[in-house]
């Protein structure tokens, strides 16, 4: 099970996948196990698994869900294979026999699919125990197909030679536009983070619609909008983290440019204003201009706080998620107690303070390798 290739690939791709998706997986776990009353948990999942292995319709729905998960993993792994850091695979992993490569990639995909696989296999067991045979076998075959199919896709990709760097459509049409410093964050999103951006906007839309359905009776309370916006800002953490990684790796030269801290801070605010443009439209179409402006400022200052927090703690996803969670709870309570405008001022102030204190003080990624 553990040849040298398996180990390296698991370390790069499977571990990387979990690191990159820690937040969303936590939410998934919470939805699966946290929302059910603890006493009912076992029965609830047993019923769910039985439904899965007895009803073809349920089976199709869950298969579709698993497929989405697997497509997400393809997106991640294929993206990583193309990354510069992994280019050595093109002249090392290829030297293993086809069989070994396929096996190694299958192991990687198996590990990536563990949350789906474990649940699926348990359902198969439950099905057999209750006298269902056909659908459990189909579940098993489906999981196997997903694993081996994905492995084949990855191995195939590694054998296709690199074609240099393709340019996204936005880069082509924006050809000779002026590109001021702040816009680089926006271009980066539309060049390399399109999917993350789309998923974030989809999530935003779901959150907003959800909140206003849930609180239909108090729709005009500004607190509902405030909490929806806080949730929307929190949905942006993945994107914010990516922007900081981009800034640290590709814009490190900025620290040698004669920009004042205020200019840089303002630039990042502008970038997020553009990134959150869809939410802005929603705000102004729904609220009076003054309230919309206030809510927008709240949203942007929360996102800026999430951004600037990273100057302080460094690019550490685990530490980051914990602090984001803490801040979320804090701001949530402030909004609930009608302190939304104070919360907005405080988050903006704290963001600026964190930025001012840490912008030139942080350890850079490269600084750590002691060249």
């Amino acid at each position: 099970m553990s040849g040298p290739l398996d180990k390296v690939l698991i370390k790069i791709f499977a571990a990387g996948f979990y690191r990159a998706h820690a937040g969303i997986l936590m939410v998934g776990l919470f939805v699966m196990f946290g929302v059910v009353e603890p006493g009912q948990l076992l029965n609830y999942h047993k019923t769910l698994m039985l439904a899965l292995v007895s009803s073809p319709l349920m089976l199709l729905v869950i298969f579709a869900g698993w497929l989405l998960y697997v497509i997400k993993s393809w997106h991640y792994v294929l993206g990583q294979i193309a990354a510069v850091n992994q280019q050595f695979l093109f002249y090392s992993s290829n030297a293993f026999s086809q069989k070994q490569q396929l096996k190694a990639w299958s192991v990687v995909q198996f590990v990536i699919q563990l949350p789906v696989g474990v649940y699926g296999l348990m359902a198969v067991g439950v099905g057999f125990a209750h006298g269902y045979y056909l659908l459990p076998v189909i579940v098993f075959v489906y999981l196997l197909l997903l694993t081996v199919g994905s492995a084949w896709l990855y191995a195939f990709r590694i054998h296709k030679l690199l074609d240099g760097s393709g340019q996204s459509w936005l880069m082509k049409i924006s050809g000779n536009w002026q590109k001021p410093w702040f816009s680089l964050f926006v271009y980066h999103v539309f060049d390399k983070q399109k999917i993350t951006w789309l998923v974030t906007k989809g999530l935003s839309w779901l959150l907003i619609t959800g909140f206003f359905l849930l609180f239909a009776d108090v729709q005009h309370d500004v607190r509902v909008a405030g909490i929806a916006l806080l949730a929307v800002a929190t949905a942006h953490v993945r994107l914010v983290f990516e922007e900081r990684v981009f800034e640290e790796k590709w814009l490190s030269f900025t620290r040698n440019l004669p920009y004042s801290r205020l200019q840089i801070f303002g630039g990042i605010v502008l970038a997020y204003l553009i990134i959150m443009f869809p939410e802005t439209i929603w705000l102004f179409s729904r609220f009076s201009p003054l309230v919309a402006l206030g809510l927008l400022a709240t949203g942007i200052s929360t996102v800026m706080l999430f951004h600037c927090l990273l100057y302080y703690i460094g690019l550490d996803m685990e530490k980051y998620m914990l602090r984001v969670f803490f801040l979320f709870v804090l701001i949530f309570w402030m909004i609930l107690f009608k302190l939304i405008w104070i919360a907005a001022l405080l988050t903006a102030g704290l963001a600026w303070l964190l930025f001012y204190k840490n912008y030139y003080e942080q350890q850079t990624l490269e600084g750590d390798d002691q060249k």
Partner: protein
Amino acid sequence: MLDFVKFQKFYGNFSALTINEFTLPPGVYWIKGVNGSGKSTLLKSVAGMLAFNGDILLDDAISIKKHPVAYRKLVNFAEAEPLFPEFLTGSEMIRLFAAAKDAPTGQETEFINSMQMQSYMDKPVGTYSSGMLKKLSLVLAFLGRPRLILLDEPLITIDTASLKILYSWIHRLHLEEGVSFMLTSHQTFDETDRLKVTELMIDHQNLQFSN
């Protein structure tokens, strides 16, 4: 030209470089030291890219900590292995730096032409070879009206013809405009009788003149 005041650079608890009091008069400096001795750390600190304790003063008056913007107008830097956003073209990088460093209009043209970079200036940086990227970063370091230019490993990856051109730029800026240089390299510099290169040595986490 450059004063170090109680300069200390730590990586965690490990002291990487300590320069208590040290003054560099105007000149061209070649910083030597084995791998990992802290050459890049020194240049990145002087460029304002790495955090450190203490202070660095340019021309006795401009402090990197107290006058961050003014200092960075006057100190330019080319990294050993530059990284620029891959979707930007060479021209866009030049425009960004020229605007930031207040470069006179058209200043870059001569640099670009002499290094024969015209053909790929409008292509995205992501398609550049490491030599092309290196040349671009060198041009960026010469933009504006710097007092000090820091070049980290400027001799690696560029071809021999470009090397000669780089030397000529250094000559000209130093002799005609009095610009100082700090360079690191494992190769020997091509010293001519017109340009005096002073050697500096980093040893035991300390910077000193080597004899």
